[in-house]
């Protein structure tokens, strides 16, 4: 009897949860569906939900009429470039803070986090002017520099919380056993550090991929990543729902998949380990 009741309850919960889940997901689903319609069907009223003439012409159009691939590559270079640069700068620092802390370490960490709180708009004008004068406006290099600095505190914090969890005794034990420095690094440290670095990388690629304030303000065409490219559809061109949807689908698909894989790290990274 009780089991039957809980089975029914589970069924009801399932229906409710799926209804709400699909409702939240619907705009994304709708975008993907629309991207496979002809423009006439995309704008038709009443809208067709599944029974339409499936076509990939919008994808071909987006690719041939605009340099979609170029913008995609800009996004890749900027997101990964800034993440790798931030990692290169942050790994030694986080390492030092986790394994050789001083009294000031915590204050330094706090201060670093506080730079993240500064609204970008307070820095926009000087950065814009400096970039204009140094020719960095609308270049990938310029955006990589800015996004590296913006994400550096988060990268540092994430790495710090991961490194902090590695027990120092393991290192000492390895040393006692007479492991050479190289062996220590290859066999002891790397396997413990790589997962933390990998999830930090993943989260920051997601953040950098979707960053819009700086990409919109510092690029026009050459270095414009997908965030800025999509924004150009806010002109009357946006009324071509099929093409808008195809471009949008291509812009969000890679990062959506990455994001789904890194849910757990996301919680940890975005809350600096405050919620477990």
């Amino acid at each position: 009897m009780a089991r039957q009741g809980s089975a029914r309850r589970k069924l009801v919960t399932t229906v409710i949860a799926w209804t709400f889940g699909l409702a939240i997901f619907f705009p994304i689903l709708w975008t993907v569906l629309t991207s496979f319609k002809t423009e006439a069907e995309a704008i038709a009223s009443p809208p067709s939900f599944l029974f339409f003439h499936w076509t990939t012409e919008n994808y071909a159009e987006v690719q041939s009429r605009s340099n979609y691939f170029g913008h995609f590559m800009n996004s890749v270079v900027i997101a990964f470039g800034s993440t790798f640069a931030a990692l290169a700068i942050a790994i030694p620092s986080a390492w030092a803070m986790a394994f050789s802390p001083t009294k000031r370490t915590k204050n330094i960490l706090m201060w670093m986090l506080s730079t993240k709180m500064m609204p970008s708009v307070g820095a926009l004008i000087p950065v814009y002017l400096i970039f204009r004068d140094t020719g960095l406006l609308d270049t990938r290099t310029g955006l990589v520099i800015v996004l590296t600095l913006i994400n550096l505190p988060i990268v540092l914090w994430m790495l710090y919380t991961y490194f902090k969890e590695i027990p120092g005794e393991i290192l000492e034990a390895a040393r006692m056993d007479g492991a050479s420095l190289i062996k220590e690094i290859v066999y002891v440290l790397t396997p413990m550090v790589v997962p933390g670095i990998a999830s930090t990388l993943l989260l920051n690629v997601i953040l950098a991929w979707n960053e819009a304030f700086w990409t919109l303000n510092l690029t026009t065409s050459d270095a414009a990543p997908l965030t800025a490219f999509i924004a150009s559809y806010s002109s009357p061109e946006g009324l071509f729902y099929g093409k808008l949807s195809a471009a949008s689908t291509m812009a969000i698909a890679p990062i959506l998949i990455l994001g789904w894989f890194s849910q757990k790290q996301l919680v940890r990274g975005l809350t600096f380990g405050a919620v477990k």
Partner: protein
Amino acid sequence: MATGHTHSAARLMMAPSVVLLLAWMIVPLAMTAYFSFLRYNLLMPGEEVFTSLANYQFFLTDPAFFSALINTLLIVLGVLVITIIGGIGFALLLDQPMFGQGIVRILVIAPFFVMPTVSALVWKNMFMNPVNGLFAWIARSLGLEPFDWLANAPLLSIILIIAWQWLPFATLILLTALQSLNEEQKEAAEMDGAGPISKFIYIILPHMARAITVVILIQTIFLLSIFAEILVTTNGGPGVESTNLTFLVYTQALLQFDIGGASAGGIVAVVLANIVAVFLIRFVGKNLEA
């Protein structure tokens, strides 16, 4: 192990990030502060003169500033209310036993990964458009007059779009917190005859308190400087109805080329964010102790 030698090595390893962040913090901010005291327009180069607090006076007495300030706060509060209440609801729902829990979870968190410009455009055109939008079709199907969302309720529309993007974040954090709640504690409460409501108020809510605070603080930081959603949907309009501080500074700087006035606005935004940040830093600091 911690010898003077390792400490100096540690300092060396930390130097690049400390120096870079210090420069990133000080240089732009100092320049913004400096510009904010100048009469400086990009269209009139070479005519920069010191004007003391005139820019601040101009910016702070501009009626647009007051509405931008109110809009900024309304966006933050509106989105917070929707995402916290919705997030608690979703977290409770997703914590129940069900079929396909993992898939539902994936569906719910998806909007968080959609870039702001895409979500703004999709909502603007495919949902809120008064002629071809899905909402207009639903209204017509029900025999109602379609509502022009972005023209008649621009701020509300923007709040809804942003709330859709941030609801997954709140849900994810709150669900994580909820799942760390001790199952035995819930059972014990049930044994003692606690109904679902008192269980929620006395056990679940206090357990989620910390996560809720984290969500509020982190979202506030991001929501204070919303930009892309406004740029793509309403461009701040009609008038300044959907302009927030970030957007106001942007229009002043890059559209009106008034570097002095915009810098004063930038400094005001920094001050506002710092008031919020003080609380966040304290809070995270406390967590680090634990």
